[in-house]
């Protein structure tokens, strides 16, 4: 076994120098072969020690291979941009073509009307609820914009329709347009040219070794294969190219057939020579050469095949494959990274001032909008106004100004006297740093001027109080997929005509001084901590969370927060047996203590255990166990308030019989409820439910049978807790070319309340290119009514949608 030469070592050091990102792998490989010696792969010995050492290193730490690759990729990002920035010659064409000729471009619009006729809401009388929607896509000076409006109406509140508008900058679409504009201006694979293949040296040597052998074969055949060897030397993907395509290239069937024919001719000529007959020497020599070349080519291909087998056995091809996939995934990721797209667009595209400005806009919503930025700032926050986020290289600024209202849905109108109101005006500014890096920090300051608007005085200007919320949050990436987020928030409230008796001596404190007050720090503070990580290779993910919201904390930006609560939660998910078995556990304990001065609290524990066995065709069998318990602890005593246990087994089965496909979802669950509103009274209810939803599919036709039976031991006449049986059977079919329909029969029984039978009809589909329609009607007849029924057994849904496309 040859020892490493100085030249080889120099080459290796050079590799290490130029591929700093892969230094870990190469340093490890270097130390390995220093111990064991090193040789280039020789003829028939492609599984070299060097290959072994490096591949063993890679094999033993697939994760580190990825990490090394990814870190190298990350390092090269800045170089990539430096290189791209060097190209000062910008393209002249704008991303949307002739921008100023068409400053306002209409793309598509849809007008739809959706309606619901039902009786199951409040009061039990029939009502009709409709939404009239208009949505449209536009480009304003090349900036994609959605304009939507919605009018909600309800027969119970005639003349009080709720009208909402929204203008929304479609950043996703904008990035997509930029990507299209960049197509042809950059070579995606060149994005990772800076990342050197850690196997490149091995591939080069392996290729060199093969070429050396092929040249030797060529020499033996006196240069007959010179062109072919040259072609092979020029092949970029020689190591990975399939042997079949190489055979097809050099030993084309028509060529082989032709040579076979010539071989026969040569034999015949030789026979003539043997018989002493005259032959054409030139033809004879030509035939000999061609047959010899065929033999040489076969030897050449055999040698390539031999090497390829060795490369396969050594694991080299597997590693090249892994690197190729990683590189491809990274290119895809890079091309979809908004920061990369915007920076490339700035470099490569000729954009107008407005278009350049919008490269920095991450979000712009005007009108009715929803915002979620964090549990202690804004969470599913609905407002009317403006919400925007501006980005710079590493910073972001979020600005919000709008009106918050209790009545976002017309179906909330009956609840005009709710004791908790969040009506008011919101103003907020948030500043973020570390945008795009592993650690991001955000600071937001939000002011809520709250009033008590009702339905009839929706524009009540009288301010009741002003709430100031300051939140600081940090998100930190740990490892490949780990993420830790920490949020700390404080709130302070001031009444427009209010004062605290405690403040009378020192003068009233304003909100800002309360926010920065260090006295009783936790009194008006909320904290949220979460850590989540995922190990894809091990099929493991988990999270841990802790939330505490003080009794003195309030945040109208997240109406789901509960002041006075402490919550500890965890979850773990593990996939086993080649993604067939899924285990999942989630659990949390919540403590609600609504007075810090008293030893009284509610303690709630909840767990969720899932076991799921997945099979082909979406089949599975799953088990779920959910216990939940609430206790009331007061001083030294405690009593159960409510408890619930649910156990369920679900199964989804699928079979195909020729063209027939059969699916059955089956569920069996048991539930045990106990509720003690006061120590003297306990209500218990338990039930067992069996459900089966069966479908038989033949092309576009389907027969279905749905059944659900609940047996409850509840004797009280409570509609939703009683035994019940529901059965439905129907047939789905093609009514017209693009219209499907289904017709069904229903039987419905609720013990102690009613027995009903009825029909159900649905029609849905497309009328031409522009109109789509959906109709659902469920009509039943009461066979028997045991108690006066509030539920009128008629329900209908209808939607009609018309699409307008700009064909230009």
């Amino acid at each position, binding site marked *: 076994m040859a020892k490493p030469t100085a030249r080889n070592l120099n080459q290796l050091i050079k590799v290490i120098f130029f591929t700093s990102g892969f230094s870990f792998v190469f340093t490890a490989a270097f130390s390995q072969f220093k111990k064991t010696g090193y040789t280039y792969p020789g003829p028939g010995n492609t599984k070299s020690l060097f290959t072994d050492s490096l591949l063993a290193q890679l094999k033993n730490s697939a994760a580190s291979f990825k990490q090394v690759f990814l870190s190298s990729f990350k390092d090269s990002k800045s170089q990539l941009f430096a290189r791209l920035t060097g190209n000062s010659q910008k393209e002249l064409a704008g991303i949307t073509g002739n921008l100023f000729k068409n400053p306002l471009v209409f793309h598509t619009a849809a007008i739809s009307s959706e*309606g619901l006729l*039902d009786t*199951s*809401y*409040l009061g039990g009388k029939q009502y009709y609820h*409709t939404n009239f929607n208009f949505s449209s896509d536009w480009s304003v000076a090349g900036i994609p914009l959605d304009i939507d409006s*919605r009018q909600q109406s309800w027969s119970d509140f005639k003349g009080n329709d709720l009208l*909402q508008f929204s203008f929304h900058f479609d950043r996703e679409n904008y990035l997509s347009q930029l990507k299209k504009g960049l197509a042809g201006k950059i070579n995606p694979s060149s994005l990772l040219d800076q990342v050197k293949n850690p196997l490149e040296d091995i591939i080069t040597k392996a290729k060199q070794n093969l070429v050396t052998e092929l040249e030797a074969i060529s020499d033996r055949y006196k240069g007959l294969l010179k062109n072919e060897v040259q072609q092979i030397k020029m092949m970029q*993907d020689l190591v*990975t190219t*399939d042997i079949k*395509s190489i055979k097809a290239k050099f030993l084309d069937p028509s060529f082989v057939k032709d040579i076979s024919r010539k071989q026969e001719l040569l034999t015949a000529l030789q026979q003539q020579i043997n018989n002493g007959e005259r032959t054409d020497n030139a033809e004879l020599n030509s035939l000999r050469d061609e047959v010899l070349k065929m033999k040489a080519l076969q030897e050449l291909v055999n040698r390539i095949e031999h090497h390829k087998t060795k490369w396969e056995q050594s694991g080299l091809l597997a590693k090249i494959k892994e690197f190729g*996939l990683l590189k491809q995934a990274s290119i895809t990721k890079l091309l979809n990274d908004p920061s990369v797209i915007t920076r490339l667009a700035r470099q490569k595209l000729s954009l107008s001032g407005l278009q350049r400005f919008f490269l920095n806009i991450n979000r712009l919503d005007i009108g009715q909008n929803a915002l979620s930025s964090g549990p202690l700032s804004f969470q599913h*926050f609905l407002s009317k106004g403006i919400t925007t986020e501006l980005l710079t290289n590493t910073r972001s600024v979020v600005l919000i100004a709008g009106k918050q209202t209790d009545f*976002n849905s017309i179906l*909330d109108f009956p*609840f005009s*006297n*709710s*004791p*908790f109101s969040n009506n008011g005006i919101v103003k907020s500014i948030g500043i973020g740093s570390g945008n795009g890096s592993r650690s991001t920090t955000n600071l937001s300051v939000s002011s809520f001027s709250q009033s008590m608007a009702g339905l009839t005085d929706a524009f*009540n*200007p*009288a301010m009741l109080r002003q709430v100031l919320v300051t939140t600081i949050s940090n998100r930190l990436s740990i490892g490949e997929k780990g993420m830790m987020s920490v949020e700390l928030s404080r709130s302070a409230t001031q*009444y*427009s*005509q*209010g004062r*605290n008796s*405690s403040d009378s001596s020192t003068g009233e404190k304003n909100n800002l001084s309360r926010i920065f007050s260090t006295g009783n720090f936790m009194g008006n503070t909320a904290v949220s901590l979460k850590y989540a990580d995922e190990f894809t290779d091990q099929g493991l993910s988990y999270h841990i969370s802790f939330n505490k919201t003080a009794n*003195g904390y*309030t945040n109208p930006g997240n*109406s789901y927060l509960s*002041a006075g609560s402490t919550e500890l939660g965890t979850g773990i998910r593990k996939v086993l047996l080649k993604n067939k078995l899924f285990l999942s556990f*989630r659990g949390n304990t919540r403590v*609600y203590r*609504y*007075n810090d001065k008293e030893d009284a609290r509610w303690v*709630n524990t*909840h767990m969720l255990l899932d076991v799921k066995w997945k099979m082909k065709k*979406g089949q599975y069998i799953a088990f779920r166990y959910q216990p*939940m318990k609430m206790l*009331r602890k007061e001083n030294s005593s405690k009593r159960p308030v*409510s408890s619930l246990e649910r156990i369920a087994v*679900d199964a989804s089965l699928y079979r195909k019989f020729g063209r027939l496909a059969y*699916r059955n*979802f089956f569920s069996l669950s048991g*539930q045990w*409820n106990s509720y003690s*509103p006061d120590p003297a009274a306990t209500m218990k209810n338990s039930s067992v*439910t069996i459900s089966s*939803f069966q479908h038989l599919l033949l092309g576009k036709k389907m027969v279905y049978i*749905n059944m659900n039976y609940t047996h409850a031991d509840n004797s009280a006449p409570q*509609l*939703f*807790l009683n035994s019940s049986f*529901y059965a439905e059977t129907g047939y789905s079919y093609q009514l017209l070319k693009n219209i499907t329909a289904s017709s069904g029969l229903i039987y*419905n029984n609720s013990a102690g309340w009613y027995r*009903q039978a009825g029909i159900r009809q649905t029609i849905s589909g497309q009328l031409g290119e522009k109109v789509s329609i959906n109709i*659902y009607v469920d009509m039943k007849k009461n066979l028997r009514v045991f108690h006066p029924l509030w539920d009128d057994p008629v329900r209908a849904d209808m939607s009609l949608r018309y699409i307008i496309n700009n064909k230009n």
Partner: protein
Amino acid sequence: MRLKSYRVLLPVIMICAIVSAGRAQVAITFNAPVYGQSLEGLAFVQIFNSSAEDVKASVIIRVNENTAGNVLVATLSSVPLRRGNNMLDRATFSRGRFSFGNSYYGLTLSQTGRFPEGEYEYCFEIEITDSKSPWVSPFFENCFIQQLQPMTPLLLINPADGDESCNTRPVFLWQLPSPLPAEARCRLVLTELKDKQDIAEAVNYNIPVLNQGNIIGNQLMFPGSAPSLKEGKNYAWQVIVYTGKAILKRSEIWTYSVKCDEEIKPFSTDSYRELKEEDGNFYIASKFLRFSFHNPYNAGLLSYSIASLAGGGTPIKDLPELKILPGLNKFDVDLSENKSFKNGQEYMLEVRLANNRNLRLRFVYKNE
């Protein structure tokens, strides 16, 4: 208790006095268990003006806690009291003067608008300040005692947040808040979650699939009259608990998806691998093989084969028939339908075009 007996007796004496005089009076009622939880809830005191005229009054609301004493004094002036039943005008209430007690209770109320747990006495003092006719006594007062326990949140249980299941008619389950007024009812709303839509927008704006009110208890079997949920659709659901015209609690909003098959059709051309005459790269076909190529020739049946490289080039049988059109062609071949494909093994796709042009794609089949 001393306070309680005094406060109960006072209105009785006043009612007796006024009835005996046969003159105008003001009756005050307050639903303390519901509206005594928050500062703005105090505005929902019911004031019945039995006189024959609309008057104006000044209202003082005093809230005391049994151990801490004064929690709040709210002073409202020029409160209009129309004939009949009145609630406090919200604008007038908002413009009121609020003086909070020097205690934990006063501070917490001032900061959050919510009363901490405790035993409270809510006293409403009304003095008629602007009236055309004389009143026997222009002053009325009524007090209400409440052992206040703020309600715990309404917690959803099943289907768990983000659940995906084949069940098109699931049972909904939640935990009721404690303590809960006996007359409280639940309402469940379930709506389809549209693409890119926030869950709060979905439950507030979309036409509901389920909008079930008057639910007693903590569960809802999927109503018989409602349409089954649709496969591939995502849904958002929320429960509120209410009494009369007041929402007491809203739950979080959870999502549920009906998902039976995991097969997801590709959305964009990015998912298709373009075929070339030689392919040195690797492609992973997860259940589906998606490929595209440009066909400069006529339409017809696609001539193609897939061979197992691990099996020495053995061709796979029973491949589906594919139709080829002139121009760009895209194909989705469901490999999971064919048992010959083995997870993790390599295969070679070969497409034969007219004029003997062959396109190839080497791929690894994954079915996980």
